[in-house]
């Protein structure tokens, strides 16, 4: 038995039956990290000592025949924008290179209650801004399926770590596709929950009306287990809510109606990806689901609206890195203004600076109405598109990305070309919907993900739809 191949349930049962110990499981993953991470660079920090001590505690509990929660002793990796008390949290930025988190994020507290094991913190685009993990101040992560290619982003380290079996599961964050997209590029499962389903307390803020934490896992079942562990209302995040009970939720695939937005199959979509996504849709039809073509007429406007709203919120959130309270501080110069200018100018990388500039511009006097306010109105129209479609169908199917994992360096010098790969993922954040990225096929050795989009708080339904795909072979 190869310990790093196990799913959450398999590993849980193995611990319970004492087939192996939590220490052995933890050591197997630490060994894998030592073997592979030199070339993949999924981890920014590995907490070997912490992880082994957490595993030891679980072993003690097993010896004492204590009840074992499902995630107890299972080694995880956490995106380095989520705070773990007393562990460095960089956000992939020089400005937080030496920042030690003073408290636990709510999701970390919840995982601690389950006696989870934290192997380390994963690489990301600086402040989660990017689609390739190339914007990390500490160097790019490589795609385990092809080391010359990007793993996607911004949760590229988390997705690559799961794909390379360097952790059993990982947490990521998704502001415009940052969980789903690297999950698709790395051939693993990623769930972006409904806005408000998971507390954002202790998540380094990027664009607060769009950010959500979610799981990146080997299987859909694993994604559900991790999501169930981290979800729920939290008094530390007033935008978090208790997931309402959805009455009579219908899980029989033969009674489910799946919509296929025609705007998602237009110019720009790689024909090889289109072929695989269409075959996946066909597979659902064979399982007995009703497939219906639908229209989201404002789809093409979601991306420009997103790239106004996202930098606007980011520019406000990142104002706090001023060289005074914590983080990098460049004290040269004569007055406070110099400290601000030098700290931000030198501490932030190119993409972060670009977003701060775009956001400040969009919010500044004279441009606010033409850019920010107009984008917020377009957001309403995008939302209404989805509301109308969800009157007719239960969930939507489509691609996660229009392109295959691209070469490291291919897009990094052309910011707009990098933004354009987010075309299928950003609308979901503007509207706050849950969406799953599910591996559904490959072009050569490069994975392709299917996106399953649900109504607000219907995570369980889209997860069930995803499980049906896995049950029927898992790939086209």
């Amino acid at each position, binding site marked *: 038995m190869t310990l790093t191949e196990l799913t959450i349930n398999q590993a849980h049962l193995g611990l319970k039956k004492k087939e192996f110990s939590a220490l052995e499981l933890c050591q197997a993953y630490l060994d894998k990290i030592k073997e592979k991470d030199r070339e993949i660079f999924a981890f920014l920090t590995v907490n070997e000592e912490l992880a082994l001590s957490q595993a030891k505690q679980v072993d003690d509990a097993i010896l004492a025949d204590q009840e074992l929660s499902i995630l107890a002793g299972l080694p995880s990796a956490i995106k380095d924008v989520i705070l773990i008390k007393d562990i460095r949290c960089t956000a992939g930025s020089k400005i937080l290179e030496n920042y030690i988190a003073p*408290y636990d994020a709510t999701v970390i507290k919840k995982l601690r209650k389950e006696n989870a094991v934290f192997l380390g913190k994963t690489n990301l685009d600086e402040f989660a801004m990017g689609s390739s993990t190339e914007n990390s101040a500490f160097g790019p992560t490589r795609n385990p399926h092809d080391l010359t290619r990007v793993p996607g982003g911004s949760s590229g380290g988390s997705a690559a770590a799961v794909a390379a079996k360097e952790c059993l599961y990982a947490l990521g964050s998704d502001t415009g596709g940052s969980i789903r997209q690297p999950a698709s590029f790395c051939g693993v499962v990623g769930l972006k929950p409904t806005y408000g389903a998971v507390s954002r307390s202790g998540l380094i803020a990027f664009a607060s*009306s769009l950010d959500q934490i979610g799981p990146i896992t080997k299987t859909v079942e694993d994604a559900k287990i991790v999501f169930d562990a981290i979800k729920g209302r939290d008094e530390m995040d007033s935008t978090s809510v208790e997931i309402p009970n959805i009455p009579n939720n219908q899980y029989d695939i033969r009674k489910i109606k799946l919509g296929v937005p025609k705007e998602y199959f237009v110019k720009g979509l790689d024909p090889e990806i289109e072929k695989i996504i269409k075959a996946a849709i066909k597979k659902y039809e064979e399982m007995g689901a009703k497939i219906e073509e639908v229209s989201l007429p404002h789809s093409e406007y979601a991306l420009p609206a997103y790239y106004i709203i996202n930098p606007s919120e980011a520019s406000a959130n990142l104002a706090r890195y001023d060289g005074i309270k914590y983080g990098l501080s460049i*004290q040269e110069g004569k*007055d406070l203004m110099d400290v601000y200018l030098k700290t931000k100018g030198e501490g932030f990388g190119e993409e972060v*600076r670009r977003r701060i*500039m775009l956001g400040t511009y969009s919010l500044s006097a004279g441009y606010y109405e033409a850019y920010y306010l107009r984008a917020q109105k*377009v957001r309403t129209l995008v939302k209404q598109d989805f509301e109308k479609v969800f009157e007719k169908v239960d969930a939507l199917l489509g691609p996660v990305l229009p392109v295959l994992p691209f070469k490291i360096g291919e897009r990094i010098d052309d910011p*707009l070309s990098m933004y354009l790969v987010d075309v299928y993922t950003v609308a979901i954040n503007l509207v706050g919907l849950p969406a799953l990225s599910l591996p559904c096929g490959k072009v050569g050795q490069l994975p392709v993900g299917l996106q399953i989009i649900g109504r*607000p708080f219907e995570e369980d339904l889209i997860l069930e739809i995803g499980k049906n795909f896995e049950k029927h072979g898992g790939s086209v």
Partner: protein
Amino acid sequence: MITRKEVEHIAKLARLGLNEREIEKMRGELAKILDYFEKLKKVDVSQVEPTSHSIKVENVMRKDESSRSKFPNSQLIEMAPDRKDGFIKVKSIFGR
């Protein structure tokens, strides 16, 4: 088309220190991205209300009661790059 002067103005508003070369590069990149945003002008938004929050939530209230901070003050002050006597120290606000 965004001008060099505008880029300098925005950078100053954002407290972002950019050198000559960076300002010129930024101008070119912003121009291209802002040009892409022009697409939104094609949408009729005259009758549309803006959305700032995607999921409906009512005002979230709590009792107006004080509670103890979970951190000792000193722990947070310790994180500041420059300190004196338990306070955060900053450079002068007006140039000498």
